[in-house]
């Protein structure tokens, strides 16, 4: 049986799991908890595909050990929508066609959520810097930036 017994909160739910020391938060999400919304890209913190929010800050889940999670609060892309209603960031990614293959999309949307939580009214430059840790090989980024700026405007208006 795996060494570590960990209790954490994921998307508001209390979760308990076992993991080996070698397993990252990304491994735990995908392989132990079968939450495959979070994607595995580079595994070295360069691409941002595995971005999740941990204790209120976005992190690369490939650079966090599962064993470190005891008592942590994690938010993943699976927690963005409310029932069948998409989060404004998700809806704007669709509206602006801000994705093609989709592998980077959960990471981008999670990072965008973290960015807008700290800066609800970012400039385009701030969005570009805020998303600099997320790589996309399809879109050329521009549609992603538009989607995030548009989502920010909608989220401000609905407050």
């Amino acid at each position, binding site marked *: 049986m795996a*060494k570590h017994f960990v209790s954490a909160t994921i998307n508001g739910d209390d979760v308990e799991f076992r993991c080996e020391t070698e397993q990252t938060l990304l491994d735990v999400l995908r392989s132990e908890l079968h939450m495959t919304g979070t994607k595995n890209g580079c595994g070295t913190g360069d691409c941002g595909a595995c971005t999740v929010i941990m204790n209120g800050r976005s992190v690369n889940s490939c650079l966090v050990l599962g064993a470190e999670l005891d008592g942590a609060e994690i938010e993943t892309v699976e927690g963005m929508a409310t029932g069948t209603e998409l989060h404004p960031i998700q809806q704007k990614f669709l509206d602006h066609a801000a994705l093609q293959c989709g592998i980077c999309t959960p990471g981008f949307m999670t990072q965008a959520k973290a960015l807008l939580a700290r800066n609800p009214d970012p400039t385009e430059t701030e969005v570009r810097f805020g998303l600099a840790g997320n790589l996309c090989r399809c879109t050329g980024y521009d549609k992603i930036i538009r989607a995030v700026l548009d989502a920010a405007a909608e989220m401000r208006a609905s407050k």
Partner: protein
Amino acid sequence: MGVLRNVSDLNYETPTDIESAVALLTDNDRAKVLAGGTDLLVQLREEMIEPSLIVDIKRIAETRIVKMGADEIRIGAAVTGAELDENDALKAAWPGVVEGVELIGSWQVQGRATIGGNLCNGSPAADGVPALIAGAAKIVIVGPNGTREVPAEDFNTGPGQNVLAKGEFVVSIVLPVRPPKSSDAYLRFIPRTEMDIAVVGAGVSLTLNEDGTCAAARMSLGAVAPKAVLVESATDILVGKKLTDDVLAALAEAASASCDPIDDKRGTIKFRIKVAAVLARRAATIAWQRAEKS
């Protein structure tokens, strides 16, 4: 898929006090300290290291706090870049130290990467280090023989190397509280605008007299030698002077003269030596302007 290694003999401990951490590190020949993990987990994954124990120091209170004292500022080794950025008092006192750490990686990396980890990882291009050297920071090391302090410029001994002995780890970093009209700055050159490794980095810390002359100054350069270097001649060049073109030219020359860089894909030797001069001049100018306003 995605598991760092296929062996399961790797243990993980979360000591909550310094003594327990030191005991774990002393008793285990293949122990590694974990703070933010942004370097350690990559090294594990790439099998550059094969520890049998990971000692997570983040649950030790001393590693996680920034204490603004009357005579000193004590920054826990495991304080993250994002946390430093949100600390207005520290940013006002040592803007260059904070801007150096802030340059490390993306938002996601900033949420995890720590000031102590950047130092201990020992990259010659570490963005968090030159401003600490310029700031005359002391590295507080705990170990089986108690506590010792090492000047920041003496901590690293080469790429990936430092003075830590068996059982020791960095618990905090101490910066002095400076007189009014003091400030600092850190600049780096990278080929893109974000998320890259410094080709050259320059940190300058200085204090001005009431008459506008320089009372104290230190400069450090990163990525131009096997470790970040203290440019000792910079102190004499700046102290007692005003910020004139001649002074800046002498400073630039001293910066270039202290370079012993490598050629790599990010920059040639010649380019690094030239850029060191430019960044030294600019960082000194920014630090000076900040000191005038502080």
